[in-house]
């Protein structure tokens, strides 16, 4: 684990991997230290954003550095996402991987994914655990608009687009689940770091 100042108002905790990052994040959230504005999980890091007038960074380092088993990543929820596998790039993915579209669907829906971190847009969860055979590159030309609910893959991640945004990932299906709703104040994002996800074909 390595700590780095990010200006005077944030501390970056670099970890060995996603599981470690989730442990550090859970420990910091459980400690509820004064002066912490945000704890942002990354692929292998946690960024702790603080009010420098209030926060005690030595204490932050101490809590982040000793995430004991009792503060191991909170048992994330498992969320089932029903998917209609009719994405615009499904045939391309089959061609790139040399699989039939049926096998692409079978492999994508066989895995259990981990919410590694969120970013790009509100509620956009990077789901690790993609079958190595399905790890295809992004499209050469991103789409200017990807529809809400599109289920996509790119590299080592899968995702569900929470909003209509531009996007370069390969679309293989769609879901009706609303993955982000700012009006759901207790739980605006369906998926949080540490949750597990299964895609269920329908």
């Amino acid at each position, binding site marked *: 684990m390595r700590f780095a*100042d990010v*200006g005077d108002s944030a501390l970056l905790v670099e970890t060995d991997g996603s599981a470690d990052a989730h442990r550090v994040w859970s420990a910091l959230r459980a400690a509820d230290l004064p002066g912490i504005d945000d704890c*942002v999980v990354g692929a292998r890091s946690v960024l702790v954003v603080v009010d420098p007038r209030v926060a005690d960074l030595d204490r932050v380092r101490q809590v982040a550095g000793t995430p004991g088993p009792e503060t191991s990543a909170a048992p994330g929820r498992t969320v089932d996402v029903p998917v209609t596998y009719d994405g615009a790039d499904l045939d391309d993915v089959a061609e790139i991987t040399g699989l039939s579209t049926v096998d692409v669907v079978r492999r994508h829906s066989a895995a259990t994914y981990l919410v590694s971190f969120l970013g790009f847009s509100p509620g956009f969860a990077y789901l690790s655990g993609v079958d190595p055979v399905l790890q295809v590159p992004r499209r050469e030309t991103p789409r200017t608009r990807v529809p809400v609910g599109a289920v996509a893959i790119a590299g080592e991640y899968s995702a569900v687009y929470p909003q209509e945004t531009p996007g370069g990932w390969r679309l293989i299906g769609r879901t009706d689940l609303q993955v982000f709703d700012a009006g759901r104040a207790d739980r605006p994002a369906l998926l949080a770091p540490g949750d597990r996800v299964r895609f269920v074909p329908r």
Partner: protein
Amino acid sequence: MIEVLTPGPFTTVQDSGRIGWAHLGVPVAGPADWLSHLLANRLVGNRDGAAALEVTAAGPTLWVDRDTAVAVVGASLQVDDEPAPTGRTVLVPAGSRATVGGTDDVRAYLAVAGGIDVPPVLGSRSADTLSGLGPGPLAAGDVLAVAPADLPPVWMLDRHALPQRRDALRVIAGPHADWFTEQARRAFAGGSYDVSPSSDRVGVRLDGPRLARSREGELPTEGMATGALQVPPDGAPILLLANHGATGGYPVIGVVVRADLPAAGQLRPGATVQFTVVERDQAVAAYLDLRAAADRAVVVG
């Protein structure tokens, strides 16, 4: 209430931002210049972080249905076509129009006693111009509720209490400074950058010495802080402002200190900017000094 007669080129509602949701990919937003926002609110007796208007380039014309105390920081003000003081509590009589003129720099703030009372989204009234959360930019015909407040005493801004703007923005070496060549780090700290016109509340694009990497590979996605100078593969840094995305994937060579974020938020396209590297202790001290100066700068008029 306030009715928007003309919105100005780009005017948004901003409070202290959508804090505490970045782990779900939600940008913080909030004012690009936190200091001017804070001063405007104090000039009308609001708590720090109350929702006010952030005006870009030139202002809106607003109509008020009751006697309303307002304050503008960073632009001129007219009430019913008569010049009114800025940096001071101004009473806009019921049925009158308040017009914000051209901004001194890029952004000005208009605060209203009580605060703008648009519905909060995830605890904040800020317009998130990156992801679209919160109210959209002002449009003609919009009606903005104002939270009830007593008319405040007249406050004024003593500019002499505030430090002079510095020539160079202070930065702390970034978490990935070692991803860049020694030459690039020297060029960054000693060079001069032009502010690109394609800058907005998300970030200021800079054109100047290209910053070469000493290390190949991609940065695993990580949380991004306001003030971070991200360097994409083309070597031209982007200074992240208040509405930056929660995470990013480019190495950060330096991070502008909180005391200098107000100046960063006022960088005008075409202007030049330099950076000077400081230690964290100096940066925190500068921030505390600036907060103390802000406390002294708002005085009874």
